[in-house]
C-alpha cells in the first residue's frame, strides 16, 4: 500500500499525484516508469516517473483520465492509498553524450521530458524545449519549463497560448532557422512522435522517442509491450521505453495500441453509467 501525499489538478482531466514510495524513489531516475494497481481488483497500468525525491521518499506521477483505471484513480484523494506501486522500471534515459539538445513534449508527454530538463539543468547542460497541446489549459509544467529550459516554445492547436500550430511546425522552424541540435528527444502521442521522427530523418538528427505501449507486467514477461525497432522485436518495458525514433515501426505500434480501445470503452460505461 502506498499513500497519496498530495493531489493537484493540472487541467480538466489531468492530475498530479505525489506518492509515498521510498523504495522506488531510492533508485528512480529520469526516463523510468512505475506500474501501479489502484486497488485489489485493479489492472496493472504504467506511469512515467515525472519527479522523485529520494530524501522524502516520494515519487510524482501525472495521470490523464482516459479509461476505467485512471478514472478510478481520479476518485482517490489525499491520504488515500493505492494497492500497488512497483518500480522503478525500464531503462533510465541517458543524454550525457549530447551537447545541444531539443526536448519535445506533446500533451501529457511533457510529463516525460520534465524530469529530463531538470536532470540536464542540474548537470549544467542547456537544452531547448518545445511543448504542444490542444489549448492553453492542457499545457503542463509551464513555469518549471520556463525555469529550466534555455528557450521554451509553446504551441497550441488553437493559438490560445504560445504559437498556433503543431510541435513539428516549430521544430522545422528552428532547424531551418539554423539551430544545430545533436539530439531531439520527443515524447507524446504515437502519431506526434511519428511525425517528429519523419521530419528529423530528413535533417539527419538523432531522435529519441519514448514508447508508451500496452503493458501488463512491465518486467519482460508477457511480450504485450513488444514493438519492432530496426526489424527486431524489442520490449518497451525492459529494453525501453526509449528507442531510436528513426528505427521504430510506428504504424505497427499504433495498430497494437488501438486494439484494446473498444474493450476499455465498455468498462468506462460501467463506471460512469454510460457517461463519458
Amino acid at each position, binding site marked *: 500500500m502506498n499513500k497519496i501525499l498530495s493531489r493537484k489538478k493540472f487541467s480538466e482531466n489531468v492530475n498530479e499525484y505525489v506518492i509515498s514510495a521510498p523504495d522506488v524513489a531510492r533508485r528512480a531516475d529520469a526516463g523510468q516508469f512505475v506500474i501501479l494497481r489502484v486497488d485489489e481488483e485493479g489492472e496493472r497500468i504504467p506511469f512515467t516517473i515525472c519527479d522523485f525525491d529520494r530524501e522524502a521518499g516520494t515519487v510524482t506521477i501525472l495521470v490523464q483520465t482516459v479509461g476505467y483505471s485512471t478514472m478510478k484513480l481520479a476518485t482517490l484523494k489525499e491520504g488515500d492509498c493505492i494497492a500497488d506501486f512497483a518500480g522503478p522500471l525500464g531503462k533510465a534515459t541517458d543524454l550525457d553524450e549530447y551537447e545541444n539538445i531539443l526536448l519535445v513534449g506533446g500533451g501529457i508527454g511533457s510529463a516525460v521530458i520534465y524530469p529530463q530538463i531538470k536532470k540536464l539543468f542540474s548537470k549544467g547542460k542547456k537544452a531547448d524545449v518545445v511543448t504542444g497541446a490542444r489549448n492553453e489549459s492542457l499545457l503542463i509544467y509551464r513555469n518549471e519549463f520556463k525555469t529550466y529550459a534555455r528557450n521554451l516554445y509553446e504551441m497550441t492547436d488553437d493559438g490560445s497560448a504560445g504559437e498556433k500550430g503543431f510541435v513539428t511546425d516549430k521544430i522545422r522552424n528552428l532547424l531551418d532557422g539554423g539551430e544545430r541540435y545533436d539530439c531531439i528527444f520527443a515524447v507524446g502521442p504515437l502519431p506526434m512522435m511519428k511525425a517528429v521522427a519523419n521530419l528529423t530523418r530528413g535533417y539527419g538528427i538523432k531522435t529519441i522517442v519514448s514508447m508508451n505501449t500496452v503493458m501488463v507486467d512491465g*518486467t519482460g514477461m508477457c*511480450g504485450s509491450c513488444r514493438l519492432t525497432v530496426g526489424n527486431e522485436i524489442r520490449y518497451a518495458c525492459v529494453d525501453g521505453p526509449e528507442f531510436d525514433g528513426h528505427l521504430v515501426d510506428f504504424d505497427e505500434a499504433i495498430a497494437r495500441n488501438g486494439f484494446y480501445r473498444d474493450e476499455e470503452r465498455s468498462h468506462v460505461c460501467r463506471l460512469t453509467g454510460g457517461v463519458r
Partner: protein
Amino acid sequence: MADFLRHEMKNQSPEQRVKNFDEVALGFDKATAKAEAERCLNCKNAPCRKGCPVGVNIPAFISYVKNDDMDGAVASLNGDNSLPAVCGRVCPQERQCERFCVRREKAGGSVSIGALERYVADYALKKGKQQERKVKTTGKTAAVIGSGPASLTCAADLQSHGFDVTVFEAFHKAGGVLVYGIPEFRLPKDIVKKEIDNLSEMGVKFRFDTIIGKTFTLDELRKNFDAVFIGTGAGLPLFLKIKGENLPGVYSANEYLTRVNLMKAYDKNSITPVQRGKHVVVVGAGNVAMDAARTAVRMGADDVTLVYRRGREEMPARREEIIHAEEEGVKFELLTNPAEILGTDGKVSGIRCVRMELGEPDSSGRRSPHAIEGSEFDIICDQVIVALGTSPNPLLRDGATGLEITSKGTIVVNPETGETSLENVYAGGDAVTGAATVILAMGAGRLAAKSIIEKLGDK
C-alpha cells in the same frame, strides 16, 4: 481383496466444464481413496520413489490412507513435500512415480499416486492449521527472490529451520507460474493461496512489487542477508520470429494466461481486458499450450486449433491435459508448422502453415521434423497464441556482480549444492534449468535450503 483396476478421479463432464473455470478433476471421495490405497502393494524397494524428483515416501503415506489414519498420512506427506496439493494436481505422474509402479503393465494399471496425494493434501487444507511447532531461531537471515514453487519450498524449509526469511516478488501476488500461468480449472487459486498463507503463518515475510535488479539489487541483498536464494523462473516468452507476429491478436501464452488468470479477465467484472477470440490457433503442445487452448475454449471461442510441428508421441504436455483438451473440442493439427501470420485491416485473419514429416532420430534420439515442400495451407483465425517456451528473465542481472550465467541465460549452479558462482547465493527452478516442472523446481528449492542449513544453520 483389493480392486484390480486403477481408479480414476471423476471429472466435470466436457459439456459442462467448457462453460466454467471450475476445476475439471473432482478428486477422490473417501471410499475410492481407500480402495485405491488398497491397491498399493507396499513394495519393499518402492520403485515409485525413484521416479519422484523429491523422493516422497509414497508407500508410507498411502499405507496411512489404507489404515484410515489421515493425520498420519498428512504428517508423512508434509515431511517430504511442502506443496502436495499443488503437486498432486500438476505433476506429470505418468512420467514420474506412476511410471515405475509395478502394477502399471500387468496388474490393472499404476496406483493413482497423484490422485491420492491430492486427496491427502486436500484433507489437510480443509482441516486447517497443523499444530504449531516451536522453532528455535538461528539468528540468520535469508532473502528468497521470486515466489514460485522453487522459492516457496526453499522459504518453507529455511523458516522451519530457524531462519528469518523474506521473499521478494516482482508481482503483486505470490505463487509464480502457479498463479499467473496454470489456470483455475486445473489448479484452483484458493489452494495456492492456502499453501502461501501457511508460509506466512510460519513467519515468512513477503514483499511484493519488488523487482530484484530494479527496486533492489542482488549485490544489496547479499550485504543485508546471510544467504540468498534465486528462484526467478523462466518468464521471458519466445516467439516464432515469423511475419505477422506483432499483429494485434497475436499473444504470447504468458500474456494471454496472465490476463485471464492473474488479472481475472474471464470474470465479466474484471477490468483487465482480453480479446475473446472466435477462431483461435495455439502454437505448441506443452502444458502451456494445452492451458492456453482450454482457456480459449472457456472464453467462448467457436473453435480452437492447436498447431504442433511434431507428432502426438512427442507432445510434451501431461497426458491428462491432452485428453482433456481433446474432450473439450480442441482440434490438433500435428506435424504442422506456422510459416506466417496473415492480417487483414491490421488484425489477425489467419495463419499459414506447412505440413512436416519426421526425419531420422538425431543424436538425442528425437526425430526432427522437416517441411514438406508445397504443402502450405491456411487456417482462418482471429487470434493466435504462441506457446513455444520461455527463457529466464534477465532483469535480475542488473547489479548482480559476479553471478555466472550460461549463454542461454540460465544461472550456473553446483548441482550438488545449488550454490551459484557467488558465495552464499543459491539458485534453483526454471531460472537454472530453463522451463521445466513444478516438482523439479521444488526439488531444487529443497536442495538449496538443505545446503544453506548445513552451512549456516545451527550445528
